[in-house]
């Protein structure tokens, strides 16, 4: 009985550790998706500026408070504008940006089809 109790306590402790590690991983993932606004071409994760460090501790604090990933993005978007997110949202300003690669892919495919497959026949 004593052993089982001990075992359970150890198990719980390890699980706490896991929960913490998960938050840490999520924090890294989120900060990699954030642009360090005062640096040139660096993410918050990569930067060691005061601004980036503050953001890192804020993300950690929000995760500990139980915020979801998307809620943190929304919060920061509200404070700093969409520019802080590396992945631009799909709206009327950015649909060209999002659709251009697909468009180029289709045109390229059409050229290949025309040049090689139609030629063979």
């Amino acid at each position, binding site marked *: 009985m004593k052993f089982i109790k001990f075992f359970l306590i150890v198990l719980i402790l390890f699980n706490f550790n896991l929960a913490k590690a998960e938050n840490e991983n999520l924090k890294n993932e989120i900060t990699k998706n954030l642009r360090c606004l005062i640096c040139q071409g660096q993410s918050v994760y990569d930067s060691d500026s*005061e601004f980036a460090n503050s953001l890192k501790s*804020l993300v950690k604090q929000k995760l500990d408070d139980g915020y979801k990933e998307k809620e943190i993005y929304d919060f920061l978007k509200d*404070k700093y504008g969409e520019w802080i997110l590396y992945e631009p949202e799909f709206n009327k300003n950015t649909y060209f940006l999002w659709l251009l690669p697909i468009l180029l892919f289709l045109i390229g495919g059409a050229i290949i089809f025309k040049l090689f497959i139609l030629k063979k026949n």
Partner: protein
Amino acid sequence: MKVKFFPFFLSLIFLLIFIVFFKGLNKSNIYAPDNIIEKKVPSFSGKLFNQEKEVNSSEIFAEKKFYLVNIWASWCIPCREEHSFLMELNRIENLEIIGINYKDKTDNAKSFLNELKNPYDLIILDKNGTISIEWGAYGVPETFLISDKNIIKKIIGPLNTDSFSEIKDLVR
């Protein structure tokens, strides 16, 4: 037909790239947020400087007058520059100056205030910089003018004669 299609497509791509880069030439690469005016004061709580007391943002901005929130640190050189303006603004009756002490050592902050005098009616400690993030700040110094719980002006960087007189006009 086949001969004509390829050069046409190529020139179209070049034209597209040219337009994108040409437009980019005129764009400033300094990012200034445009969504800061007419925003509500963020909610936060923090410890007071020199006191073992925690305050909430709703208590601080409760009265119906102007508030000037200034983010500063003793290690920040431009903060020394703008200090005289803050001392001057401190004389205005219906303006309360609230300092946010950004990532600073308490002893250094104390000697900074002893040396240059204290213009703040209230100082909130921001040890890890998260309160400043709540304000949407980039660094130190940064100043916000608040009226009726709305941010009506934001100054990034130290105050100068222009922003000083602008604040004075707004508060009057």
